[in-house]
């Protein structure tokens, strides 16, 4: 498994899952909170990735 995107998605899934379960008690709230967090992780990673694109190391 070498795809950075897949590794990023799995990482975001686990972190969102744990935070959602810690922060919320109700199942629907956990799903909503975790989903928003997961989407936020992915969106911010993609946006930052494209913003850094013109500046290779």
């Amino acid at each position: 498994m070498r795809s950075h995107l897949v590794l990023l998605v799995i990482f975001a899934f686990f972190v969102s899952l744990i935070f959602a379960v810690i922060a919320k008690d109700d199942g629907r709230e956990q799903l909503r909170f975790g989903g928003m967090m997961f989407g936020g992780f992915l969106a911010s990673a993609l946006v930052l990735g494209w913003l850094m694109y013109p500046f290779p190391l």
Partner: protein
Amino acid sequence: MRATAAEETQSGTLVLLCLASWAIPGAGHLWLGRRSKGLIFLIALPVMFALGLALQGRLFPFDLNEPLVGLAAIADLGIGVPYFIATTLGYGGGEVRAVTYEYGNAYLIVAGLLNLLVVIDAFDVAMGRK
């Protein structure tokens, strides 16, 4: 003012609860009857830790001369018993040339830190704050 016997018993139980919660991810929540939360922690955190090892991440040594390495070691230790199992079995050496090395480190460190958050959550539940 001296603590009463009941208070001492309660604080002793709290210490045991936090230790159990640290050693086995989710054990604190299972102890407190939060079965679904405990099971999610019990499965998700060791899986994340194992993925970190599979991605050639490194379990950092306690090197106080390198502050960041020392902090990473403390974070790695946060996962509890799985850390000792991995080190006993010889995992966590880290392969710095592997493409996934940094991802592995991130998985290992964050799994440990998340487990420490779970310990704090179990403490809050036991104190009746949640």
